[in-house]
């Protein structure tokens, strides 16, 4: 792999490299500093005159003598079933002292957009065991959910507690309403939505 020593400018997290051969947009970059440390970055802007690299770590130690290696591929990471139970760094490298992950696949970390036509409506109830969530602000499989927090709130506890307790009850057997039935026997609460708003999906449309 070619290494360029043509750093023109370093400003904050950005490194500007001159006189390169064509470099792809979004490409992963390795920067080798004088003491041999390798830092990672990504191409933010590329042209035949100058390439702008955003460094993921501090630029401390990078100088005009640093070597820039363009890897020729966008950021991908190895994935596989073995990943369960492992602890990874933000860059996807194991930091639990274990061996490297044996990849089943290498996937782009940016992912691709789901075709809206191929999506199915999120409608599976997730039971967290936390009454205020299950009861009034129900979690649904396939939903995205931000947790807004204040510095004194125990966000971390919550975040780890809810997935640990998640259950996805089979829908027909234990409807979320079943526990409410005693209050109004034979009749669902009036707050239930009309069934037409929650159409059943044909299997052809559902997303794998």
């Amino acid at each position, binding site marked *: 792999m070619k290494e360029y020593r043509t750093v023109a400018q370093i400003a904050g997290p950005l490194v500007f490299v001159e006189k390169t051969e064509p470099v792809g947009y979004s490409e992963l970059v390795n920067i080798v500093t004088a003491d041999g440390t390798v830092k990672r970055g990504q191409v933010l802007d*590329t*042209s*035949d005159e100058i390439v702008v690299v955003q460094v993921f770590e501090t630029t401390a130690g990078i100088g005009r003598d640093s070597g820039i290696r363009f890897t020729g591929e966008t950021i991908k990471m190895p994935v596989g079933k073995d990943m369960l139970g492992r602890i990874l760094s933000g860059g996807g490298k194991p930091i639990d002292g274990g061996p490297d992950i044996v990849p089943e696949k290498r996937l782009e970390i940016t992912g691709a*957009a*789901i*075709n*809206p*036509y*191929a999506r199915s409506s999120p409608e599976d109830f997730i039971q967290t065991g936390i009454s205020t969530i299950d009861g009034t602000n129900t979690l649904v499989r396939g939903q995205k959910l931000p947790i807004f927090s204040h510095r004194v709130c125990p966000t971390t506890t919550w975040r780890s507690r809810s997935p640990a307790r998640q259950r996805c009850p089979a829908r027909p057997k234990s409807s979320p309403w079943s526990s409410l039935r005693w209050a109004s026997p034979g009749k669902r609460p009036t707050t239930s939505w009309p069934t037409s708003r929650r*159409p059943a999906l044909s299997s052809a449309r559902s997303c794998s």
Partner: protein
Amino acid sequence: MEKGKENRTQGVLKRISGPVVTAVGLDAHMYDVVKVGNEELMGEVIKIQGENIIIQVYEDTAGIRPGEPVGNTGLSLAVELGPGLLTSIYDGIQRPLEVLVDKMGNFIERGVSAPGLSHEKKWEFVPTVKKGDEVKAGDIIGTVQETNIVHKVMVPPKAKGGKIKEISGGSFTVDETVCVLEDGTEIAMLQRWPVRVPRPVTEKLNPDIPLITGQRILDGLFPIAKGGTAAIPGPFGSGKTVTQQQLAKWSDAEIVVYIGCGERGNEMTEVLTEFPELEDPKTGKPLMERTVLIANTSNMPVAAREASVYTGITIAEYFRDMGYDVSLMADSTSRWAEAMREISSRLEEMPGEEGYPAYLAARLSEFYERAGRVISLNGEGGSVSVIGAVSPPGGDFSEPVTQNTLRIVKVFWALDAKLSQRRHFPAINWLNSYSLYLDALNEWYDKEVSPEWNPLRAWAMGVLQKEAELQEIVQLVGSDALPDEEQVTIEVARMIREIFLQQNAYDAVDTFCPMSKQYDMMKAIKHFADLAHTAQAGGATPQQVIAIKSKNELPQIKFIRDYEPELEKIMKDMEAEFDAMRTV
């Protein structure tokens, strides 16, 4: 292009910066469609700077390098128009999402192109003109039964026209020639039209016919005209979706174009699954049969989002030219403006307010101005009404997108989360909403509903505004401190709110309320107010007036289809009660 110089249709990439790339060595015009890189990603020329051609790319540009080729197609970004549009679901640049699933699976990958219309499917073409007839641009030459909607095949707007040499009915694909003119021009059912150019019309008409929606607060108090523009701000949980669906279902527009622009994927899925299942109340067929959906979810490429509203309105204009009333819903124009902002900052343009480009207002009005009621080139009257949802971040109406939208649109339906929390539906705030079409529409209401309607509406608005004033006093000192007459005003306002304004979208009868019924309901409330006024003048106390029993029956008529006998009975009872009060 300079004389003597060859047309250079192939250039090379010089710079890539997100969705914006620069090419050199290419002859291009503004808004030409180009194919970028080895993967031939679709892009559009948005700026020319000497040799540098700046292009926005509709797909992800990761991995593209300087030096890769760029080819100019010489065409501007255009949509395919013809039979097959209805029931389709497109992305922002008119690629059918259904076809994309077949081609590349559940995720959207790069460099796949798909035509907007099926070029294989055969349609039954029935000519409406014959050999020897003179036709000009825009004229209707035949029809195709597309769904339950008749698709009218027109001479393209830019064609010269002339005498028909040959025309025949039968089964054709959209590409096949159905008609030949004497000068040799061949006309197929397929037309292409550049999305950024409004389709020509003969004449724009005054928007003086209301778009009847069957929703009392809209038709009665804040009507939108056919060919008008309206904005709905959609705070979270205010029932924007239901309101839009009611409009799609009940408004007397024949064609619905729905643009999901930068919406959440899950929300778009809801629309995609519900629209095909919703029944069109007028025909009993799926609502989808008269609908075109355009979806660009929040994680699909931004440049295509910028294009999606233009794609949508061009399709709407095409149906308008056939003589249909079209309603176009854009959800949400805020996401569209944000896409513009992202591209603009990549172009290193001077930012305006909150980083939006300085031309934000111009682009917004360019879009909304394509609404209108018109006489098309072929003499048919049609309209495009645009209803744009705005989602101001943090509900802040002073931000530039909302402000600029409000400057352009003439109707504002202020959805209010507080009202929906109070279970007042549709949650449209009657104090903040407005319609500037009232003056233009007065004549229609005079003629089609009743000459009494306009004064009745003014009276109702007056009562509601008075109530808002009185409520402040009530909160301070309690309702007993109010003068007798005003205590009754508060009661009348409550009746207007609960009987007239509240409407149940899920009730088979109440979901659509014809104008005549709206008039009768409002007249009944006014009649009560008048009787109460007379009774008070004769010495009745407000408690006596409020205790009138028959008025409590009034809300029931909302849910009765043939309500007239019931209403008459209630009104007779009411008069009898007031009479009894006088004799006591």
